[in-house]
């Protein structure tokens, strides 16, 4: 594809659900002219080895993302709050794997 066309076709993020009951997971992105086009291309590219039972496509420009520069104030304060992990409870054996 020419670079001009790549600029004309917006970018879409692709999410695939691998089986019923599981969540849709982000698996990649592609350029397409509209949502229907993006869905069909995602079907051909991302589900050809039986990876999915459902596809979502989302215009990439509608996603708001955190800034890498915000890492300090966003994420690092959580690093010394070990008490937020429920690892201090004793779990009865009958509960099994959580």
């Amino acid at each position: 594809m020419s670079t001009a066309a790549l600029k004309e076709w917006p970018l879409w993020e692709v999410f695939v659900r691998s089986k019923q009951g599981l969540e849709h997971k982000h698996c990649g992105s592609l350029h397409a002219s509209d949502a229907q086009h993006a869905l069909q291309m995602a079907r051909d590219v991302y589900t050809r080895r039986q990876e999915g039972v459902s596809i979502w496509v989302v215009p990439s420009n509608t996603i708001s993302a955190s800034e890498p520069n915000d890492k300090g104030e966003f994420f690092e304060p959580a690093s010394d709050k070990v008490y937020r992990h429920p690892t201090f409870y004793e779990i009865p054996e009958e509960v099994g794997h959580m």
Partner: protein
Amino acid sequence: MNAPVDYLLHLADNALILGQRNAEWCGHGPILEEDIALSNNSLDLIGQARLLYQHAAEQMGKGATEDTLAYFRDVPDFRNYTLCELPHMPLMAATSAGDRDFATTIVRNFLYSSLMVLVWDQLQNSKDAQLAAIAAKSLKEVRYHLRHSRDWLVRLGDGSEVSHAKAQAALDQLLPYTQEFWTTSPQESAALANGTGIDMAALQNDWNQIVSEALQEATLQRPAAGGFVPTGKQGIHSEHLGFVLAEMQSLARQHPGAIW
């Protein structure tokens, strides 16, 4: 009850030859996603051909296999529609080189898939149980092929001036070849007579409707179908099939029995 061998070969050859043609896009698609889409389409068709050849080979015996049927028959033995063997470009001498035309590919896949969704649907009721099972599997695949090609047909036809002109030119060139769908061949008559085949003429109205609706949406003019009626399914082909077979069969013929 088994379908006549020549009828199975007709169905198989259509799938194999169009599959081989679509595979020519592998590595050359206009965009990565279309490259994969056309390869997927091609592999679906070759998969259908394999099942049909295996079924035919069982009846033929004498060492026939899917490989001998695909790789060791010559042009007059093939029973595919002439439409399936044409190159992806405006028609010219078979020895000429030209750029692949995406509109030609899309229009051909659309015309063929529109037919095959009807054919496979009906063949699910074939008295040949194995053919009925192959039909059920193939129907799902060809429904996607129709969706894919129809979607592009509308995008090209109702797109830019250039894409419209290319789609219209491809349609003008290819539509007359669909006349072959409605002529009767000995193998189709034999299959219809023993309940394993279908009445192709009965599908014509439904096919016309699928095509007309899509063309209207794509703002394309339907050319008059007239003149030469091709005879590929009777083994009389265009000059293009020989070149398809030469490329497809050369490896198997240079190394007979080779496996990996």
